[in-house]
C-alpha cells in the first residue's frame, strides 16, 4: 500500500511527536508513505475567513502536487484533512469557483481535476485499509490495564468524514480495544477543544478545555488520545494554565493516538516522540503496562 502524505505545518515543529510516531508506526506496519513534495500550508480556518477563492486555491495547490503515482493523500491533522477534502468537494460541485481556481493554479503552472485525489484521514486509513487483523498481528505489547480516552475533536468527524459517526465516533475506540486497552466511553469525545480560541479569548477557550479534561478525569482515564495537533496543543500545553484559572489539578497526559499505537507495536518510546508533551505520559504508561516489553520490537 502506498500513500501520499501531507504532514501539515503543525507536524513540523509544535507536534513533531505526531509526525515521528506516524512515520514509525507506518513503517512498522509496512505501509509506504511518501511525503508530498514542497507542500504548502492549508491555511487552517484563517484563509476561509478572509477570501474563499484564495483559500481554495492555496489548498488546491497541494492537491495539484500529488503526482500520478499516488491517488490517495493522507493527512493526520484535522484542519488539513477537512480543508483538503472540502476543497476537492467544492471544486467538484461549484463549477464557477472551479473555473477561477483553475485560472489561479494555471498562474503557477499547475492544474487539478476534482476527484482525482482521494483525501483520507490517517485514522480512517489505519482502521479501514490496514484493518484489525493486520494491526493485531503486529501487537507485541498489548495495552492491557491502561485506561485510554479517545478524543476525536471536531473537524475529523464533522462534517465530511464519511467514515465514522459525527456525534459519537467509535473507530479509535475500537482500534484501542484491538490493542487491549481499556477504552473509556466518555460523553465529550467529539466536543470542541476551543481551536484557535486560546489565542483570541482565553477564558472561553479554557472553559472548553476544562470540560474535556474534567470528563476524561471523571471517567478515570490514564491518558487522552488525540488525532489533531490543535487538540493536543490545547489540552496539553494549556493544561497548567487551565488548572491555574479554575483551581483544578488535572494532570492528564495527552498523546497522539499513533504514539500509543506505536507502543503497542513494540516501538521504542523515544522513536515515537514521547517526552515532548508537557504533562509527561511515560511514567503512567510504563507503570500500567508490563514495562519489560515496551519498545521490544526495536
Amino acid at each position, binding site marked *: 500500500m502506498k500513500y501520499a502524505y501531507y504532514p501539515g505545518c503543525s507536524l513540523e515543529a509544535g507536534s513533531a511527536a505526531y509526525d515521528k510516531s506516524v512515520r514509525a508506526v507506518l513503517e512498522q506496519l509496512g505501509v509506504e508513505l511518501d511525503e508530498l513534495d514542497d507542500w504548502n500550508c492549508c491555511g487552517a480556518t484563517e484563509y476561509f475567513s478572509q477570501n474563499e477563492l484564495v483559500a481554495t486555491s492555496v489548498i488546491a495547490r497541494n492537491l495539484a502536487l500529488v503526482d500520478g503515482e499516488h491517488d490517495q493523500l493522507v493527512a493526520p491533522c484535522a484542519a488539513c484533512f477537512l480543508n483538503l477534502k472540502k476543497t476537492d468537494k467544492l471544486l467538484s460541485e461549484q463549477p464557477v469557483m472551479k473555473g477561477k481556481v483553475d485560472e489561479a493554479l494555471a498562474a503557477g503552472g499547475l492544474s487539478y481535476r476534482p476527484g482525482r485525489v482521494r483525501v483520507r484521514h490517517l485514522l480512517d486509513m489505519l482502521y479501514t485499509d490496514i484493518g484489525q487483523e493486520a494491526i493485531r498481528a503486529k501487537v507485541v505489547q498489548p495495552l492491557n490495564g491502561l485506561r485510554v480516552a479517545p478524543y476525536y475533536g471536531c473537524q475529523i468527524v464533522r462534517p465530511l468524514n464519511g467514515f465514522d*459517526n459525527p*456525534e*459519537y465516533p467509535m473507530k479509535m475506540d475500537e482500534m484501542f480495544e484491538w490493542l487491549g486497552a481499556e477504552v473509556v*466511553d*466518555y*460523553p*465529550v469525545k467529539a466536543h470542541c477543544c476551543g481551536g484557535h480560541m486560546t489565542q483570541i479569548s482565553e477564558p472561553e477557550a479554557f472553559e472548553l478545555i476544562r*470540560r474535556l479534561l*474534567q*470528563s476524561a478525569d471523571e471517567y478515570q482515564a490514564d491518558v487522552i488520545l488525540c488525532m489533531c495537533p490543535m487538540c493536543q496543543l490545547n489540552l496539553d500545553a494549556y493544561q497548567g494554565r487551565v488548572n491555574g484559572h479554575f483551581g483544578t489539578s488535572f494532570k492528564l497526559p495527552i498523546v497522539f493516538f499513533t504514539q500509543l499505537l506505536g507502543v503497542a507495536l513494540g516501538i521504542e518510546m523515544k522513536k515515537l516522540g514521547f517526552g515532548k508533551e508537557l504533562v509527561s505520559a511515560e511514567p503512567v504508561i510504563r507503570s500500567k503496562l508490563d514495562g519489560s516489553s515496551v519498545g521490544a520490537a526495536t
Partner: protein
Amino acid sequence: MAEKVGVYVCHCGSNIAGKVDVEDVAKWAGEKVKDVAVSRDYKFMCSSLGQKLVEDDIREQGLTRVVVAACSPHLHEKTFRRACSNAGLNPYLMEMTNIREHCSWVHKDRAAATEKARSLVSASIERVKFQEPLEPMFVDVNRATLVIGGGIAGLQATLELADAGYPVYLVERQPSIGGHMAQFDKTFPTLDCSACILTPKMSEVGQHENVTLLTYAELEEVSGSVGNFKVRIRQKARHVVFDDCTGCGICVEKCPRKVLDTEFEAGMGNRKAIYMPFPQAVPRVPVIDTESCIWFERQKCRACEKLCPTNAIDFDQEDEMIEIEVGNIIMATGWDAFDTRKIPQYGYGRLANVYTSLEFERLCNAAGPTNGKIVLRDGKTEPKSVAIVHCVGSRDERHNPYCSGICCMASLKLGHLVLEKTDAEVYSFYIDMRTNQKNYEEFYQRLLGEGMRFVRGKVAEVTDAARKPSEQGKLIVQCEDTLVGRQQRFPVDMVILMGAIEPQVDAREMGLKCGISCSMEGWYTERHPKLDPVATMTDGIFVAGACQGPKDIPASVAQGAAAAARVAGMITKGKVMIEPIVASIDEEGCSGCRICNNLCPYNAIEYDAEAKVSRVITALCKGCGTCVSACPAGAIRGAHFSDRQIFAEIQGALWDAWQPRGGASEEAEAVPVSAP
C-alpha cells in the same frame, strides 16, 4: 371514411390556462389538424356545462371521436366516458390528454408549454382515430372483505362491515389485535382510558359472527382483481391448537422461561416463552415463541404441555397456508416507531434514563410493568424533573422531513400524566406546538395552566457530562431557548424522546403484493389527497389509518369507517365494471410456444393442450401488455393499446417534425401509419 373528431381544451380555471394558451391550442387544432370537426376551449370541462358541450356536439354534429385535453385521466376519464355514453358514443372512443400534470404544472415558459400542449393534443387526435369501440365487462363482487392490520383503524373497518352483515377476514401479524392503542394508558385530548374504549371493540371483533379473525398471520400473496381477489395467508404456527385452548393461562403461568418483551412492553417488561401479549388479548390463545422456548432451544421442558388441561399444546404444529376469496381489501397496517438510536446526541441506549415515548407509555400505564408508577430505570426513584423532547426524527431532513402530527399532543398527554402522578417538574422542548384538531388547543391551554414548562427550542444534546455541581448525577438537556435567544442547560432526571411515526418497514413490500404504491417515505398513496383519501389507484384496495400517513386515533377511526363505507357501497352495487382493456390471442397466429404463459404476472394465460394454443383468461387479465410484446409470432393483441394506436400517437406527438409548417394536410397520408 374519415372520422369526425371533437377536441375540447380545458382551462381548469387558471391551472392550465395560466401557463398554456388554451384558446390558441383549440383554435390550432380546429383549423390545422385533419379530421377535427369541432374544437373548443372551456373554463371547466368537468362541470356539467362542459360535459353537455361534448354530449351536444356528439348528437348534433355526429362526432365519431372525442379528445378532452384537461387534467389526468385518473381524475376525469370516467366523467367524460360517461358523457360520451350518454350521447350514444362508445366511451372507448374518447381519449384524454393530460395538459395539466404533464404540462402546465411542470413548465414555466408559456410559449413552450403551449407548444407542448399542441403536441400532446395532436398525439391524442391521431391515436383516437384508431381506437375501437369496446364493451365494458361486469363481474360480481364477492361479499367478503379482507382487512389487514388489527389496530384501531382495522378494527373500526371490520366492525362497520361485519355489523352491516358482510363477512370480514381480519389478518393481524401479532398474536393479538389492538395495535398501538392497546399500549397506551390514556388518550389525548380527553384522557379516556385507552383500554376502556379499545377492548370492547376488540372483543366485539373477536366474537362477531361475521368476522374470521386470523391473528399471528401474514399476507403471502394477492391475485385477481377488484370484486374477486384470491388471497393466500400464512397462519404462523402458534404451537397451541386454537380450537382446543380455553385461554386459561396455566401454561403461561408455569412456563419457566422469561424474556424481555420488546414488542408490546417496548422492552419495559418481560413475558414468557409462551405468552399472550397482554391480559385483554383477543384472541385469548397464547403462542409459543420458538426463539426463546426451552424445548426449541435444547429439547427440554414441555412444562406447558404437561400442565395444559385440554392438551392444546402442539410442538409439531407447522405454518399453514390459508386461501380465501374476497371482493375488496382494506390495508390498515399502521405505523412503526423511529429508532431513536439514530440520533446519538440524545443518548438513548447509552444514558439509562432516556426513554422512548412508547417505553414511557408502558411505564405510566396502570396495567404496565410498574403498575403505572413513574420511576427511573432503577425501579424505585421517582423523577423530580422530566424533559420531553419533541420532533425526534421528525421535521428533519436527515431522518423524516415530515411532521409526525401526533407527538406534540402526545407530549402534552405524557406531561399531564407526569404532573398528575408525581411531584416532578415537566419541561417540553418544542419547535412549534401543533394542536390543530378539535379540543387540542384547549388541551394545550390546560397544560399551560397545570404548570408544564414550555421551552421553544429543539434539543441540541442530552448529556451526563456535568459542568457544575448542580448538574452532577443528572441528565442535562442542552438547547437554545429561542424565545430568549440564549443557550441553556436543564438538569433533569428523566428524558422522554418523542420519536417520529414511521411507515412499517415492510410497507412497500406489502403494497407491492396488493398492487398499491407508497410515497417516498413509505406511506400508502391515496387515490386523491383531498377527494378520495381512502381509495387507492388500484380498484378494490383501500387504505385506512396511520399506514396512509401519520394520524391520531379519531382520524384513524374515521378512515376505517370511510373505507368500510366504500367497500359496502361496492358490495351493495353487486357488480363492478372491469375495463375491457385486455389481451387476446389470435389462435391462427399462435404457434403454441408457451412463452407468454410464464411471463404473465397475473397467471392469466392458459394453454389448451389439445388445440395447442394459448388463451387469455379475460377475467384475470389486467391488460399489462407483457405478453403482447413477448409473443414471437406477434399473435397477441392488447385492446386499446394496439401497435397502430401507439404508432399513431407517436406520430401525432411529432407532428411538427413531419409537418414543418404546422397543421396536418394531405402529406400526412404519406407517412404510413401501420404496425410493423
